[in-house]
């Protein structure tokens, strides 16, 4: 069920912030199947790609220095660190092509809060993917003409964000609903690269409590979509929105529903009985659908 690997398209990675020799070496691995690049100071670069249903890691011979990593950040920031201060606090930068670059280095703490990261030594570059139509099967069978609250469950790299984005697009285009994306890390919109639907609004780089509460108050959404529910605060915010009559699509890390039920942070999601459907994904495919009473329906 869902999309095959053929439908899954990696948005053309530009990687303009990489030195040319490294960019060429990375693309030689196979740019269509790239999932992630790991760049660490004074170590070989590692490319993670998808092949025949497997995640494969390959070392690339090039190494980069700490200085080169700083220059990459400078290019990512369009030559202005000041413009990405907020992103540095959150530990990531999104490139103009939608690539999300996670940062590791030395945290700068002031008054007990992290205000920046300096002496950056590692970058984790993840590539956005789109798969238009990957939620069509689920939408046509279970949603049809009335929006439902859905929780999308899968391990990392298995398509939760891609599926949630496409489901939101279906809600927008087929049901003509106002859909608000809470895009904490710019993964849904990819800096404007992805089609989110004609009635969509996006709140980028905001946390979920602000997004849910202010979104409901001032943007009048009929559906809110968010990624990676993890904390009690996330769960409370979602509950506020659902109790306000707004439909919610959310994602959570887990191999299956039982893993969500056993985790301390996420079992409350189930207890709230907010969701009408629990959709479990593996390898970008829907492998199980359960209703609000946890009964398997597909």
């Amino acid at each position, binding site marked *: 069920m869902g999309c095959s690997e053929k439908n899954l398209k990696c948005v053309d990675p530009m990687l303009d912030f990489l030195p040319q020799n490294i960019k060429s070496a990375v693309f030689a691995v196979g740019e269509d199947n790239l999932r992630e690049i790991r760049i660490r100071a004074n170590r070989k670069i590692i490319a993670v790609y998808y092949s025949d249903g497997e995640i494969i890691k390959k070392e690339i011979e090039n190494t980069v220095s700490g200085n080169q990593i700083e220059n990459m950040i400078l290019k990512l*920031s369009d030559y*202005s660190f000041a413009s990405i201060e907020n992103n540095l606090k959150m530990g990531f930068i999104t490139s103009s092509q939608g690539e999300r670059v996670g940062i590791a280095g030395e945290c700068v703490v002031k008054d007990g809060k992290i205000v920046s990261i300096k002496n950056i030594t590692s970058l984790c570059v993840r590539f956005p993917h789109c798969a238009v139509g990957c939620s069509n099967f689920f939408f046509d069978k279970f949603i049809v003409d009335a929006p439902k609250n859905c929780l999308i469950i899968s391990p990392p790299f298995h398509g939760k964000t891609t599926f949630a984005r496409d489901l939101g697009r279906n809600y927008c285009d087929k049901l003509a609903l106002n859909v608000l994306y809470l895009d904490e890390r710019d993964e849904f919109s990819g800096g404007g690269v992805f089609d989110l639907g004609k009635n969509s609004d996006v709140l980028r780089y905001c946390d979920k409590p602000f997004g849910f509460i202010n979104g409901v108050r001032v943007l009048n959404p009929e559906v809110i979509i968010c990624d990676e529910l993890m904390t009690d605060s996330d769960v409370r915010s979602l509950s506020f929105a659902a109790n306000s009559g707004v439909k919610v699509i959310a994602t959570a890390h887990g191999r299956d529903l039982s893993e969500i039920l056993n985790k301390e942070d996420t079992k409350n999601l189930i207890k709230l009985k907010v969701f009408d459907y629990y959709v479990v994904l593996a390898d970008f495919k829907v492998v199980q659908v359960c209703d609000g009473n946890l009964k398997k329906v597909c």
Partner: protein
Amino acid sequence: MITALSTLIGKRFTNKYKDKYEFYKAYEKFNSTAIRNLNFRNGGIRGFYKDDFGNKNFNDFLGEIIDEIDSEAKIKFLPNYLTEREKNEIVDYFTSIGRQNFNAEMDLLERTRVFLDEKIKELKEQSRRYSSLGAKLGFTIGMTTMIIIL
């Protein structure tokens, strides 16, 4: 003819003061643009490197260094009418800009603004004084040469 030629040569010899003044005016315009950007949009600054700041030498310099991270390489794109010290100051600025947090960046830009205000006043005065002097000296030498020949 000799007088005209020597007047031109004299003027040309002192044109560097006017060229330097125009260069620094463009530099000041760039710095002002950076301050406005930081105060209002707080976006990236790479796009500014392709803007026109009213002086060809300055615009050409920006075009050459747009992707040049290495400061030693930047210095070779600066015009020769700048002194070594002036070149190093400019390279330091373009190596530092964009690499700090908001407060430090604003501090750098404001200090540069104050420095450039003074520098431009000084260069304007020099340009006024030496430009006319060059033409007059050239004319005088030309006339003297003519008289000697005659």
